[in-house]
């Protein structure tokens, strides 16, 4: 079926798994009437009722901790962290427990928890509601980090997460949700009705090219693709790689691309320093050292909070114009 946006895809994936299995319980703030605000749980309340779709009080540390406890006795909680920006109110239970208990218990306590969270800016919500922050989760060991860029991937990766005995965090970009109250930067995707899984750690080449590789995730993949499309007409051949999961990271696909093009630009909506771009650069300079024709470059949110006002926000979040300029500079 045709589907616009990742929200419907994620919600459908959860619904299909919940029908098959009783061990899945959805919890978080406003997951019933509001479908977790960004639609990731929409429709589940009607299908499964309050017993399995549970609105929690506003208590991130506690419902994250509850997920740890639920997982420890065999449930598979799906937890909504409404905006990723709120992680600070519940991070301890996430990185110190959810992410570690399997390892620390010598493998006794698997932690099958799926966290779904909304990320990203570009619609004027400012610093505390526009961050991406997957860098924080990718840094601490024990989380799988999934950043889908389209409905097809979103559904397959969500179902994969629900069958994974490990904590997986799915970062759904707001501008890819396909909800009417937000801009939409994706396409309409063909999404199979039946359940299917996509493997983690498989990047995908979205657009082939030979002059330069752009590595990215989420909404930036679309911006990069549109720029690649435009530049192709001018004879600049850009290859766009969608990493899809940051943990595990598919170095293989990306380094193959860079070995071919010799140039890498990493485009990211997270803060610049000590985050995703540095890591990806490290891995690639290590695997494609000889083939790199120029230093790896990056385009990211410079290290500032996301400001509110439109011209300011536009200045800090990588735009198509900025991506284009950067690519032109690099292939010159």
């Amino acid at each position, binding site marked *: 079926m045709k589907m616009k946006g990742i929200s419907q895809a994620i919600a459908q994936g959860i619904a299909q798994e919940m029908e098959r299995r009783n061990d899945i319980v959805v919890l978080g*703030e*406003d997951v*019933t*009437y*509001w479908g977790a*605000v960004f639609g990731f749980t929409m429709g589940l309340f009607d299908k499964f009722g309050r017993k399995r779709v549970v*609105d*929690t*009080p*506003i*208590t991130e*540390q*506690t419902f994250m901790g509850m997920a740890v406890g639920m997982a420890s006795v065999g449930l598979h909680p799906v937890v909504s962290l409404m905006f990723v*920006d*709120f992680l*600070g*109110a519940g991070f301890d239970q996430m990185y110190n427990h959810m992410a570690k208990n399997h390892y620390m218990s010598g493998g006794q306590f698997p932690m099958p928890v799926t966290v779904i969270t909304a990320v990203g800016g*570009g*619609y*004027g*919500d*400012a*610093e*505390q*509601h526009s961050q991406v922050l997957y860098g924080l989760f990718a840094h601490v060991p024990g989380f799988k980090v999934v950043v889908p860029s389209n409905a097809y991937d979103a559904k397959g990766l969500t179902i994969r997460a629900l069958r994974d005995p490990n904590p997986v965090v799915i970062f759904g970009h707001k501008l890819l949700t396909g909800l*009417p*109250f*937000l*801009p939409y930067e994706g396409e309409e995707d063909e999404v199979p009705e039946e359940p299917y899984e996509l493997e983690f750690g498989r990047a995908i080449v979205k657009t082939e090219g030979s002059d330069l590789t752009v590595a990215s995730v989420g909404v930036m993949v679309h911006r990069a693709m549109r720029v690649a499309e435009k530049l192709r007409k001018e004879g600049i051949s850009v290859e766009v790689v969608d990493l899809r999961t940051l943990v595990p990271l598919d170095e293989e696909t990306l380094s193959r691309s860079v070995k071919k093009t010799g140039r890498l630009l990493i485009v990211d909506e997270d803060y610049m320093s000590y985050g995703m771009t540095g890591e990806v650069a490290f891995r690639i300079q290590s695997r494609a050292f000889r083939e790199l024709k120029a230093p790896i470059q990056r385009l990211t949110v*410079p*290290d*500032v*909070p996301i*400001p*509110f*006002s*439109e*011209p*300011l*926000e*536009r*200045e*800090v979040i990588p735009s198509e114009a900025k991506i284009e300029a950067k690519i032109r500079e690099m292939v010159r």
Partner: protein
Amino acid sequence: MKRIVIHMFLKPEPTVKDLKGLVESAGLTLDQLLEMYYEMSLIREFEEAIGAKYYEGKNPFNMASGPIRGEMHLSSGQEAVAVGVGSNLRKEDVVVSTHRPHHHAIAKGTDVRKLAAEIFGKSTGLCGGKGGHMHLFDKEVRFSCSGIVGASFPQAAGAAFAFKYRGEDNVAVAFAGEGAANHGTFYETLNAASLWELPLILVVEDNMYADSTPKSIALATPHHFQRAMSLNIPSYLVDGMDVIDVYLATRKAVQRARSGGGPSLIEAVTYRFRGHFEGDGQEYRERDEVEMWRLMDPITRLGNRLTKLGVEKERLEERRKKAKEKVDEALKFAEESPYPEPSTALTGVFR
């Protein structure tokens, strides 16, 4: 129905005689009440105007477009809480508010021009356009807020700590919703404030909902105040649609705080007439309920009382008009102001 509703609220509506007694015992003059009427009107007019502007360029509705972008949480219906509290405060007192901050800001004395300009993302705004509606900062009147639920409690406690430490008789006020008061920071702050006898007032605006979540499915108890009492904090459950009731409780709390007595809690039962944010479909509540609460509109209610106390209708209308003019002027200022230079986005992380 109107009569019935008003009478079924926290306390029965007083007769004129009892009302006079109440006003007297509160130490309030008619002029002060008129000023509160003006303040509440100013807030209402401001938010109605912002609300209307917000929808410009948003047809079909899309948060990212129009002159005001992002989420928009308005407080219509809750003005009595802000003004009842704010009327007891001085410029040096601190107020820390939430994602729903306009009424608190205005009641604290923030210049509505700068406030409007900030909401429009203009360079003349409080924060030069960086903050926007959910991140208002006004050093002038010691006002700040945060879009993170539960964040206001400890921050106000910190300011209260500083006041006590320096021997100043200022107070700090944290506003928060009944949803926020379920957050651990509420409890942690109550304990610390009680322990250290901080000049802190926590004001819980119980508007029955946190986003789409009615308090019946989020609170184990009907109210929060007894939680604070269990920590030895004097706690007032007040009629948040009655500015006099809010004023009275706050007066006691402020007196206690300024004189070194320690913290208090004020839990104000109130209601938001509009959705949680603009664009809210409000599937989680019945229309009737909203209508019923509208009958208790705190501004109309105070207006009616003032009329009963002998204030001419014209004087009320004149205040209302003045409020509207001020708002019009503020919005004009905001709209005409320039956007900030994009490059300012890159400065100011560090001082």
